[in-house]
């Protein structure tokens, strides 16, 4: 998360919003954002419904056998189509921002494309 925060400018330049999703409550998320200085969205899914709909629920993976999310990243384009997915097999190893930016540039379009957004033939 920290590394995404420090690369937020690169994501903004490309018109990519970042949203982090977990079963944490709004209060826990706001505490986390305050403590760590995160400025992107932290969304709260306490019942794990959205987490389940993305197929990334880890049943009983949390404390007291609570259902939580397994780590995963989805890159969704402006039409709502999933363009890139990263499903790690190790909770310690997550996608790094540079890798996501590279995938974005390769699959959807680099920084320049944001200027051309909506132009005929635009891939966005």
């Amino acid at each position, binding site marked *: 998360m920290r590394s995404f925060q420090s690369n937020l400018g690169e994501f903004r330049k490309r018109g990519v919003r970042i949203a982090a999703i977990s079963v944490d409550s709004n209060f826990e998320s706001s505490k986390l954002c305050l403590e760590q200085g995160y400025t992107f969205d932290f969304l709260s899914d306490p019942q794990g419904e*959205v987490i389940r709909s993305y*197929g990334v629920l*880890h049943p009983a993976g949390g404390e007291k056998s609570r259902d939580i999310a397994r780590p995963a*990243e989805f*890159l*969704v384009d402006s039409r709502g189509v999933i363009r890139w997915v990263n499903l790690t097999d*190790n*909770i310690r190893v997550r996608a790094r921002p540079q890798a996501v930016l590279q995938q974005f540039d390769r699959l959807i379009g680099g920084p320049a494309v944001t200027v051309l957004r909506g132009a005929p033939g635009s891939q966005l």
Partner: protein
Amino acid sequence: MHRSWNLLLWIGFAVTVAAVFSYVPVFVPYPITRDIPWANLLLFLLGGWMLALGLRRAFGQPEWYRGKISGAVMGVLALALFGLFCWGLFVFARHIPAADSAPKIGQQAPDFTLTDAKGEPVSLADLRKSGNAVLLIFYRGYW
């Protein structure tokens, strides 16, 4: 005859303990030391090497060095710590479900409305407004 303290044993053991307990607070925040815990493995190597030297002194020159019993105990504890560390990082960390039902590339991302840290509703459509792409990061949370 005065036998001297076998400091290598104690320092080696302290380094091994540090190798275990430094991972989360010191090395997890940086992907370069988190993804492959080489810094911690180096600490284990250093601690193990010192313990081994200390044990060799304790058993090889017992007339000069203490530590036959304490060294053996620390050696076993250090091995146990190393085992625990490896199990946690290389076995337990992989105990996650496979996510076979996750939506695939090219599929429409399931829409949702959740609340942000301020309690305000935010939907995927909101995030995509004005032509934005969206990176969704699912994380385990702090419960």
